[in-house]
């Protein structure tokens, strides 16, 4: 039991420390696709270190909500990392919550970030909060229907059990319902983590911002925490996509060899997904805000088709 718990904490540590690397990798890939040299992949670590060392300027209008939110964001992401099977399906703390709990933990973070956006009383922050909540709310049905589609095939909503169940299924990726659910979940993951075509993480223009507008007032260590939490969210979503839909390689036991293989496979899967994200971000323009609901309803339809295909085809 003790060993398992330690390995689970190691897993959490992998999420916490690996997340900035993933962000750096996506940025590097994007730079390469744009014909640039780009910042080194370790640049996010340097940014975080710098922000931690910098002074903090707070708005006079803010309350404790503003200061509390960064800590809460990081705490929810670390807690989520305890639940998600990153390297192994042996997650002794995995019983703390199923996939729905995970989605609600993410929503808790979004809720407080939106409050923090309103707290300073600037128009930008309020705009970001309003848009972020609109997108989060409209993405929610897709999330749940995609989860339904997954749960239907796996017969469970526990993340570790889903992976165990799926890895036994050899013809998994040939199942159209499974692929539809994957696409739906992928679009939702892009929306929830603030990537193109929903939100542009590299924008400088306040009026086009969503996530960036909410964090416009943050500085110093608060900003570091928020960026770190955002990186972890991306990491967790991509890990979910990788491990739930392509469950091979996740260590079924705690044998060291299996864990090493799991690590290598995870790195490979995440690299492929991150490259996919970078390719999309290079090829697509940001959608107008009021076109985003169309994208999300499209993804909802795909998730629903995945469910329908289970009942009528399989």
């Amino acid at each position, binding site marked *: 039991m003790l060993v398992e718990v330690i390995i689970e904490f190691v897993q959490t540590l992998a999420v916490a420390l690996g997340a900035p690397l993933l962000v750096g990798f996506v940025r590097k890939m994007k730079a390469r696709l744009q014909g640039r040299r780009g910042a080194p992949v370790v640049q996010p670590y340097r940014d975080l270190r710098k922000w*931690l060392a910098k002074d903090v300027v707070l708005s006079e209008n803010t*309350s404790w909500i503003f200061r509390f939110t960064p800590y809460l964001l990081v705490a929810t992401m670390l807690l989520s990392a305890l639940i998600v099977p990153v390297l192994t399906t042996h997650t002794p703390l995995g019983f703390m919550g199923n996939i729905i709990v995970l989605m609600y933990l993410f929503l808790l973070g979004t809720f407080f970030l939106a409050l923090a956006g309103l707290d300073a009383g*600037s128009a930008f922050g309020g705009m970001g*909060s309003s848009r972020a909540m609109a997108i989060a*709310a409209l993405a929610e049905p897709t*999330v749940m229907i995609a989860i*339904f589609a997954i749960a239907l095939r796996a017969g469970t909503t526990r993340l570790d059990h889903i992976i165990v169940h799926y890895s036994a299924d050899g013809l998994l990726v040939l199942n159209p319902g499974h692929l539809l659910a994957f696409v739906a979940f992928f679009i939702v993951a892009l929306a929830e983590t603030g990537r193109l075509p929903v939100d542009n993480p590299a924008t400088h223009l306040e009026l086009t911002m969503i996530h960036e507008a909410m964090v416009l007032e943050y500085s110093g260590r608060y900003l570091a925490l928020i960026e770190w939490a955002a990186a972890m969210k991306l990491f967790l979503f991509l890990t979910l996509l990788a491990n739930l839909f392509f469950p091979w390689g996740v260590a079924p036991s705690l044998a060291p060899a299996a864990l090493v293989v799991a690590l290598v496979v995870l790195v490979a899967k995440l690299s492929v997904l991150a490259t996919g994200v970078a390719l999309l971000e290079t090829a697509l323009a940001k959608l107008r805000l009021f076109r985003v609901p169309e994208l999300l309803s499209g993804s909802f339809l795909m998730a629903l088709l995945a469910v329908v295909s289970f009942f009528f085809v399989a």
Partner: protein
Amino acid sequence: MMINETLVLKLLNLTLFCFGLGALASLALARRAPAARWTGHMLALLGAGSVGTLAVAGLAGGTAHWTLSGLLPFGGVVLGIDRLSAFFLLIIAVGGFPASLYALGYTRAYESRHSLGAMACTWNLFLATMTLVVLARNVLTFLVLWEAMSLVSYFLVLTESDHAETQHAGLVYLVMTHAGFACLLMGFLLLAHATGTMDFAHWRAATASLGASTRHAIFILLALGFGAKAGVIPLHIWLPQAHPAAPSHVSAVMSGVMIKLGIYGLIRLGFDWLGIGPAVWGGAILAVAAVSAVLGVLYALMEQDLKRLLAYSSVENVGIILLGIGAGLLFQAYHLPGLAALALLAGLYHTLNHAAFKSLLFMTAGAVVQATHTRHMEAMGGLIKRMPQTALFFLVGSVAIAALPPFNGFFSEWLTFQSLLLSWQIPARDVNLIFALAIAALALTSGLAAACFVKAFGITFLALPRSDQAGQACEVSWVMRAGMALLALACLALGIWPVGVLYALQATIFEMNGAYANLYFDWKTVVANPPFATVAPLLMACALAALLAAIPLALRLRRGRTVRRYYETWGCGRALQTARFEYTSTAFANPFKRVFAFLYRPIKELDIEFHPESRFFVRTIAYRNEVRSVFEEALYQPLIRSTQWIAEQARRLQSGNVQSYLLYILIALVILILLAR
């Protein structure tokens, strides 16, 4: 442990004694407002506490039967308690106890303007009639008490009857509640006629042999009657008018508790009185529930009036509760008793939770309204600095109602999700797809509820005050804060340690349905339909708290000396920073208004008056962007118009001519004689 029957009776007597004495004493002391306020509400507090004890005794297995044969015809007054009644007594206590405490301080503001004696008297009667309604065991007792409850709450709504708005709200409430009562009356009489007994206890055995069409008619009539009280769409229109108009402790209990008695009726109807029904009933309830949940929250999102927002959100939560109950009916129709019990359990748990957080939210909203003298959110803001504790309580309520961990709304919504997800065990594809849509509706609801309460809390409490009143607001009295604090703690406790309530609910549902829910739980984990879904709310809350404590400590270890400095909000270097730059409530909701424009059908008017000399100078700009109520326009307006038309036609009969009236009497007599022949 067996609970002695005499103990239960004593508790019931104590409860009624407290409420009765409270009602009488406050009337007797009506001349001295502070005395009436204290006596009346203290006795209500004691009474509510005694209701809580009675509920615990009932949930622990105490039963009692109480008949007063002389008081009413057709069997007299019959009262009794079982676990389901006891659970709803618990809800009354959860709402009523803190609300009475809160009312001690809150009604002080009414002393100079209204009769405190009447207010405290009706408050006691309100709590007493609600208590008795869930104990009623035959038709007449139930209907009399139900009507008494509606009338007493009507008087409470009319407390501030000097506002025209309140009068209108009271009228709508009165009409809707009596339309519902008419349905109930017809339904009950039909049921009593068909089964040949007025006694609730005999119905379950007697209804099984009824014809399908009679059962359908009974179900439709009673469901309409109870649905009108619960406030499901499209019978909800009284709710957003009456709840804001009432004083806040009354709104708290009306929204948190009274509409739950509609739920109580529906559960009795669907699971007890009519036994196992056809799948259509469950499907209908599920559909109405999904519509109520989504539309309720969508209308809440558009509201600028804080209390109306909360009232619409009650419509939403009734929808969520009914999703559980409708799913339970469907599972029952397909003979899956374990899952039916699970879904019903989810619905009942959410009923209790909603009583806790909605009462809390209405009380905090009342505190805000009392401090700022407005219900309009665009005139609030910055209150977290002026009223820090009220703000914290409102935040707790918001997080709970947005179904976010670790508070109680999350747990019951999680249970509801699991019971809906488990619907794949039903072997009917069309039903499976209906469930898929219900899941989507619940998901959309929870997302929109989160957005709605970001708006409610963010606009009301954060940033800068938008008006002078908001800038001068003060924290409310400690009694009011004590009432809110109790409920905030209840929200946390019900969220992180659900075991006690789960035990009680398992026993309740077993008593009613003879099946336990497919749910395993111990002190730390809850597993729905093992091993389908697990959650460990207590551990999760502890882990979250530990992480929240650990992260700042870790940063402190690592960090060198950094300084925290306060400066103005970044506004691109602009010189002036006022509340006018803040995002408004309307602006916050605007993306939703555009996305759901097909539903809101917003009216947009922009009137610009130019200077007569030049179009470059503007004198006034008037901008109006309102949401239309589809139901009022498409359903109720035609209904009102046709009623008026019929009334006008009927008026022709009333010529004022005595001879023609004599003729009417003669015709009526002849018809009666012919009929009676």
